[in-house]
């Protein structure tokens, strides 16, 4: 009979450390202190959107995050990003309109506002850093 593998019980019960996303690593490289608030706002809104139970928020945030990474790699420019943000905003507006009135302000914040923060405050810095 083969010897039993020694199991590390402590490691089993220890909660997994939250993985930092690829976007977090990209944003960590942005050292411009003038966008520190925008960076924090973006990360908070993205986390809220991705943690929301509604699929629309999650998908919108996921798409935005992936496109920010493409910008940081120089694969999309500001013009492309703005074009895609307009597409996302159009879809977001339809989603917001479908929400009950008391939910609309939050829906707007987690979609359109999030997209605008990314397009106007984060993308220019990512492009400057990539140059």
């Amino acid at each position, binding site marked *: 009979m083969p010897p039993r593998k020694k199991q590390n019980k402590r490691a089993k019960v220890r909660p997994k450390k939250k993985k930092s996303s690829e976007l977090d690593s990209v944003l960590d490289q942005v050292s411009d202190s003038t966008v520190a608030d925008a960076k924090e706002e973006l990360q908070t809104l993205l986390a809220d959107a991705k943690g929301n139970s509604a699929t629309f928020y999650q998908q919108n945030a996921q798409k935005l995050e992936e496109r920010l990474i493409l910008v940081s790699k120089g694969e999309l*420019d500001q013009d492309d990003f703005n*074009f895609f943000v307009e597409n996302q905003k*159009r879809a977001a507006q339809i989603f917001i309109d479908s929400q009950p009135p008391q939910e609309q302000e939050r829906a707007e914040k987690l979609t359109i506002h999030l997209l605008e923060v990314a397009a106007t405050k984060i993308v220019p810095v990512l492009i400057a850093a990539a140059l």
Partner: protein
Amino acid sequence: MNSKHTIVRNTFFYAVALALASCATVSKPGSDVTLENLRAFEISFVDQFAVPGKRFDAAAFDAKVAQGNAIFQDAINNEKFSARKPVLRDLAGQFKAEAAHLRKKASTGKVTKALATEMKRDINDNFDNATAKKAE
């Protein structure tokens, strides 16, 4: 005896599957078929012109855009349910916006692989949403 029975049974299942598949094709609503045609056209448009490094052919581009606009207009005109027309108008507007962006990028040689991929991603999402909206 047993193998004969298996053949008969398999033939029966095959016939039922074939009948169901043909029913599904026949019963697909006409406007869904139109949406799928529009989607296929738009994807092929991106595949044709959003190619990194490809020389921009303005005449071919404009001809394809005109063809696209005509196809969308036909779809709007032929839609029997007036409530569905706004969905098609939205899609037509998105095609125009996409063509304008692609023209700007392709004519200045600034098309990237990521641009093409993301454009197609949005097209598919838009059509998926439109199809879902029609089912409501």
